[in-house]
């Protein structure tokens, strides 16, 4: 029997069961396609909006070295957004649509980027904690079942490690500095710790689409498993810095072999998801403004390309492949 006669759903299920990747032009259930578009797009939007809290400190980085590093990091975030948009587009959605969905609030981005970066220490905390949490999640996603998403994650993970290390280095410099610098580091940890661990998403018991995502091997570990992994990794790093975690219930549990931690304020989390965080409006307004301000550049570039084609039909091929 030729493969073409196999029921497409059966073929899809068999590929998933065998741990094979699904590629863009394969038949896939509508639900899988929708879930993938939604998740990849939100991930892309998160990278793009994620430039803003850090971009806030580009002009005020304390040294030229820190400034060069921060520019490189912010540029990486833009790049990560583009790898992901490129992956989403293989599923039949256009970049214009994704932009529009972000600009009109119909697609979201990770709530962590709706918190402000008040001091330079926040840049350290964001790199150390937010990028650390991102790595925990994204390492899992390198094994996700959709090929283009998985490949984007591999590339992103390679680059993300620098982000976390530069953040931790900022924290190290501050805790070894003056009393007020150390206090600044502690303050940043106090403000970023809870949002960082809540960003793994609601507890498994209340997480509605985790089960289906696991069946499709989109998600290979649950929110709670990833959160625990991140807490276990991060607590010793905070101890090394000599900083105190803002959680009185945080304690090593010998029996479980993990750290126990206190209850997350899920009401606060949902408020931010719903659009009522400290910076939700500002982030989107800034993004829309940048897009609108760039309209004339896009128009001019297209007009130029058109003119070049008229003047010399082979202009596009002027730099031939070697």
């Amino acid at each position, binding site marked *: 029997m030729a*493969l*073409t006669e196999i029921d497409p759903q059966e073929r899809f299920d068999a590929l998933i069961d065998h741990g094979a990747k699904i590629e863009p032009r394969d038949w896939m259930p509508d639900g899988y396609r929708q879930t993938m578009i939604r998740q990849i797009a939100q991930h892309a939007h998160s990278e793009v909006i994620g430039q803003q809290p850090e971009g806030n400190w580009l002009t005020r980085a304390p040294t030229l070295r820190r400034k060069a590093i921060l520019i490189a990091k912010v540029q990486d975030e833009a790049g990560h957004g583009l790898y992901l948009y*490129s992956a989403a587009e293989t599923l039949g959605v256009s970049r214009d649509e994704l932009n529009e969905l972000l600009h009109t609030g119909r697609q979201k981005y990770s709530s962590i980027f709706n918190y402000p970066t008040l001091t330079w220490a926040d840049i350290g905390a964001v790199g150390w904690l937010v990028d650390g949490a991102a790595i925990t999640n994204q390492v899992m996603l390198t094994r996700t079942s959709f090929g283009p998403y998985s490949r984007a994650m591999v590339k992103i993970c390679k680059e993300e490690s620098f982000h976390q290390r530069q953040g931790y280095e900022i924290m190290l410099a501050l805790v070894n500095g003056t009393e007020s610098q150390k206090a600044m580091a502690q303050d940043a940890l106090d403000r970023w710790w809870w949002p960082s661990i809540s960003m793994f998403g609601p507890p498994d018991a209340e997480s509605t689409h985790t089960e289906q995502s696991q069946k499709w091997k989109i*998600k290979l570990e649950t929110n709670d498993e990833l959160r625990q992994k991140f807490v276990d990794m991060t607590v010793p790093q905070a101890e090394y810095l000599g900083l105190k975690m803002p959680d009185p219930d945080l304690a090593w549990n010998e029996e479980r072999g993990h750290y126990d931690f206190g209850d997350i304020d899920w009401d606060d989390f949902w408020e931010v*998801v719903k659009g009522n965080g400290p910076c939700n409006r500002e982030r989107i307004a800034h993004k829309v403004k940048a897009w609108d301000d760039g309209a004339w550049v896009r128009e001019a570039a297209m007009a130029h390309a058109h003119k070049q084609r008229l003047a010399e039909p082979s202009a*596009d091929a002027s730099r031939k492949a070697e």
Partner: protein
Amino acid sequence: MSYDVPKIEGEEDPTFGNSTAGTGGYPLWEVFVRAQRGLSHVHAGSVHASDGEAATQAARDVYTRREEGVSIWVVRSSEIHATDPDDSGDWFDNPKIYRHPTFYEIPEEVGHM
């Protein structure tokens, strides 16, 4: 962190393919990067750009920020011809195992061949 933002009550998935968004209308280009001399160009991803030159510049910024390449090709995505995954059986599932060296048994005494 989970980028899989949970749905709020009453939130609906948007439908795709009916955008009214007007933009510059940059076409899509596929990007191929040669990692080093001696290797082929390999597909790296895609970029939107107004023309070929702008696409190579965008590709350099997006796909080679860490010395990943020494040469870039870009080609309009609409110019790519591809096989149909539904036909992949007819195209690729025709094993002729005698085309592989391991099909042949060579006596051990002959040594490595």
